[in-house]
């Protein structure tokens, strides 16, 4: 197990380097001059500009700039913005919002999605099954920025106006605690939730037809036990894979939700940095997301071994 872990971590390094390289190259290629962008409308002072260029190695070749960056990154140094602020500080300012949002969304997606899928699979072809199939199809089709507005209007505004229930704040305010995240997280989770429900349904339906489930029935076990202990345990394996990979995409996909609900997470930070051509911030944010993605995938693989004893890591 230990050796497997080390090997996986070593394998992750080229992916991380490749991805940062790509992102760095893309932000290097962004049109426009970052120093000029810093100065805004007026003409940048040539002396100051030259000094900044020197300080931030902007005159160096792309490769040397990248090398500079990546070697700092591996020492845990995310670098500075052109205004001298630590990139790490900027990221840690924004990151918790996105992280919280993604975690709440992840929980909603996992719990509601799996439950809906189980109910649909056990009532195959019945009303509830059709309802789950139809509603998930709709949810998958409606883009997040549309469902965001719809939920904001229905759960946020109308619930308050016509029923007096002010449970879902329309715009984000940290002081509301976890309640502040509920509506945005629901919006963020919606598409994945629908996928999880469908995947759970298919997977459980398939395992319900497995020979060992038939054996469990023949043993005279109560249906609850047949489904819960024998079918579901096996059906969960592909769902865990999906959920693990999805944690990363939830964080990456939070941009839109953050815009709708005015949350100052990494989406906003990234948009701002692209506008200001601040390559260091862009690469820092994306690297962090890639690390989340890689770690989540690693955890999934390890969970696999727990869920399925046939899998052994060597």
């Amino acid at each position, binding site marked *: 197990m230990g050796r497997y872990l080390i090997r996986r971590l070593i394998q992750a390094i080229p992916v991380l380097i490749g991805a940062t390289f790509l992102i760095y190259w893309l932000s290097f290629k962004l049109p426009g001059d970052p120093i000029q962008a810093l100065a805004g409308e007026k003409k940048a002072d040539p002396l100051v500009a030259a000094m900044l260029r020197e300080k931030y190695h902007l005159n160096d070749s792309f490769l040397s700039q990248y090398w500079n960056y990546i070697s700092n990154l591996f020492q845990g140094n995310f670098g500075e913005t052109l205004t001298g602020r630590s990139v790490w500080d900027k990221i840690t300012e924004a990151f918790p919002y996105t992280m919280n949002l993604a975690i709440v969304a992840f929980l909603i997606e996992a719990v509601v999605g799996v439950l809906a899928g189980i109910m649909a699979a056990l009532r195959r072809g019945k009303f509830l099954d059709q309802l789950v199939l139809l509603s998930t*199809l709709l949810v998958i089709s409606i883009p997040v*920025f*549309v469902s965001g507005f719809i939920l904001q209007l229905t759960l946020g505004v109308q619930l308050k106006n016509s029923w007096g229930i002010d449970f879902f704040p329309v715009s984000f305010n940290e002081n509301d605690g976890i309640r502040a995240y509920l509506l945005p997280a629901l919006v963020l989770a919606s598409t994945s939730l629908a996928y999880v429900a469908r995947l759970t349904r298919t997977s459980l339906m398939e395992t319900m037809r497995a020979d060992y489930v038939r054996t469990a029935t023949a043993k005279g076990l109560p249906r609850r036990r047949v489904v819960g202990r024998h079918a579901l345990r096996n059906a969960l394996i592909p769902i865990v894979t999906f959920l693990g990979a999805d944690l990363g995409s939830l964080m*990456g996909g939070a941009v*839109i939700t953050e815009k709708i609900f005015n949350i100052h997470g990494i989406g906003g930070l990234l948009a701002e940095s692209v506008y200001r051509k601040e390559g260091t911030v862009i690469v820092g944010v*994306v690297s962090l997301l890639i690390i989340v993605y890689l770690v989540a995938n690693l955890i999934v693989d390890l969970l696999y071994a727990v869920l399925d004893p046939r899998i052994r890591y060597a």
Partner: protein
Amino acid sequence: MRETTTVGDELTDTKTAGAPSTSGTVGNTPGKKAKKEREASLWSDAVSDLRRNPIFLIGSALVLLLVVLSAVPQWFTPDSPFTAGACQLQDSLKKPSADHWFGFDVQGCDVYTRTVWAARNSIIVGIVTTALVIVVGGALGLLAGWVGGLVDSLLSRFTEIFFAIPLLLGGMLIMSGLGKGNAWTVSIVLATLGWPQIFRIMRSSVLQNKNNDYVVAARALGAGTWRITMRHILPNAIAPVIVVGAISLGVYIGAEAALSYLGIGVQPPGISWGLMVSDASVRWLQAPHVLLFPAAALSITVLAFIMVGDAVRDALDPKLR
């Protein structure tokens, strides 16, 4: 790497408990012939299944309508949003009426006309992206699966890099780099980030089939790589590629709208549903119609493609029957 000990694979082959074989053929003739027949019946079963499936029929009717809509929008609306004076500010945010079914937006432009004309960009993005993804991902996947070894490892690592980059964030960056936001650049961006999906399908399909008895036999009989690929590998990969292609066509259309909504996709004066929603979102509590009509058009379009893909997948997957 992950390894399954002993013959765990048998488990994936779920048998239909209880249902007896209705065809009544005993034993299976090994080799190409049985394979061919199985495939033929898979497709003909699927076609007869689809013809009776209302989801497929509705979905493909919608797809057809959308394609016509994007090819010749002038059949559906007398006005063009691009003619001078198409928008009159005095009409700003007017509600839907008998003459103007969808009302007017904040600029005083007819929402119906714009919604109809916006279909073109969505369909272009969907089709072009999917085509690019299938060509690039398919070719590389085929290469990785056939050649194996170092080429396979390198290509697989390379796809992992793209998998790790979040679609929207990567899209944001590449679009800003490309500068010009129109249907074509958006397609290139989405394809750049989307091809690894098809790569994986293609690669695993090749790996699955290249050691099958009938492929080994064909090779032993002297069939060349090209012939084996064309006759055995591609036909097997087509089903999952079609399914994923149809579904992701819808997803790409949604992604284009998302990029445009974020202001980094199609740029004005281009028209996109995502852009329309973004413009309408500022005043959307006073004038919801300006947002809802393009949003509904977008949702229906995505829905149509997903319905088709979903129905095809169900028809091709005998396990789910």
